[in-house]
């Protein structure tokens, strides 16, 4: 069959909202875009473990520690679901990882910020996982089957992440003056980077139109960012905390909150490797990979030995 006809069939499927599965014909550009999008997403889950892992041993109670451990373990799981989904497109896991480790691949800019206090665990769960949920829920209907299915699993698990974060913020904001200050300080530092998680403005974002056409993006960056702001402002009010944006106000006419200008220079600076923790994150990943090499080799050697013994 010639490519034009295949492409026409593919587009018809997309229009009818029929999922594309791994062995189906797909345009090369669709495959490449998905590989980039899914692997970036997987890398974000994996690198996303690092800022929080920092606090597991410092959690203020056993209850908090158990939750932090479970959350970080979930993020590892999310990375694994997504790497498997990505591999169905014909790439090798090790190649994806080596792109991450060399710094060639991107991951969410948010994880290049430091976690300075326990309140950051609250702010991350509430805001960062909250923003991730905004992004991920529509992707449960993504046109690529394995990706959509992975997102369904991820979304089911994310809800607890956000709730445990908000609970931390709630406890702190109802606590002593020092605790309340800690919570406000965390909100101050995480608010703007969380808004940046949705990516550049629609005017700036190169891939949006094609990705919407292909059903691998369901809302634009600005639409999602607005949804996030609208959902989060009342939550901050409930905590009695102040969102660090003097331009933030309800716009009756639009039926949405207006908010101030985002510092895009900061965003592009962090994305291109110059955030406060980019180096630390990549070093940690590389160290884990290198120091785990003997484990991967030993497991292979053991498997081979067992297989030989079985054959004998």
């Amino acid at each position, binding site marked *: 069959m010639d490519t034009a006809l295949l492409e026409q069939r593919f587009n018809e499927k997309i229009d009818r909202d029929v999922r594309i*599965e791994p062995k189906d*014909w797909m345009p090369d550009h669709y495959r490449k875009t998905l590989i980039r999008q899914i692997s970036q997403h997987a890398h974000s889950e994996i690198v996303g473990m690092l800022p929080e892992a920092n606090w597991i041993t410092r959690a203020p109670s056993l209850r908090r520690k158990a939750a932090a451990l479970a959350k970080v*373990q979930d993020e590892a799981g999310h990375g694994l679901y997504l790497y*498997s989904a990505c591999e169905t497109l014909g790439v090798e896991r090790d190649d994806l990882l080596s792109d991450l480790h060399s710094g060639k691949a991107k991951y969410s800019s948010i994880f290049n910020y430091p976690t300075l206090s326990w309140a950051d665990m609250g702010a991350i769960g509430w805001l960062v996982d909250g923003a991730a949920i905004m992004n991920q829920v529509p992707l449960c209907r993504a046109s690529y089957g394995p990706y959509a299915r992975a997102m369904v699993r991820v979304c089911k698990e994310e809800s607890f992440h956000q709730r445990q974060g908000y609970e931390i913020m709630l406890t702190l904001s109802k606590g002593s003056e020092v605790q309340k200050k800690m919570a406000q300080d965390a909100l101050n530092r995480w608010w703007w980077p969380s808004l940046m998680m949705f990516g550049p403005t629609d005017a700036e974002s190169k891939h949006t139109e094609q990705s919407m056409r292909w059903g691998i993006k369901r809302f634009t960056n600005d639409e999602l960012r607005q949804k996030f702001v609208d959902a989060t402002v009342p939550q901050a009010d409930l905590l009695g905390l102040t969102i660090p944006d003097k331009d933030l106000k309800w716009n009756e006419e639009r039926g949405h909150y207006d908010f101030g200008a985002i510092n895009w220079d900061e965003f592009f600076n962090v994305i291109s490797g110059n955030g406060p923790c980019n180096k630390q994150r990549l070093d940690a990943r590389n160290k884990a990979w290198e120091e785990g090499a003997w484990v991967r080799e030993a*497991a292979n050697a053991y498997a081979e030995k067992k297989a030989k013994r079985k054959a004998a």
Partner: protein
Amino acid sequence: MNKNWPLWEVFIRSKAGLNHKHVGSLHAADAEMAIQNARDVYTRRNEGVSIWVVESKHITASDPEDADQMYEPAKDKVYRHPTFYNLPDELKHM
């Protein structure tokens, strides 16, 4: 020596009485490790009571290009369905 762990497909029975269902894949050095990893990756919230793993290379799949000739012939055989047969209304429960 740098050999990647092979890829395994994971099937999970969510509760007794139901089929094992494909849930995704993972890498492991051998079958035993694949089961252990599947437990950690796919059943952190009581999603299963039984796990099957099979190395991905052992799965043979039909070609989506053949879908027409494979499944089309079933479409015009409406007489395989109970509603094809006209029976009087007085006849209840059949």
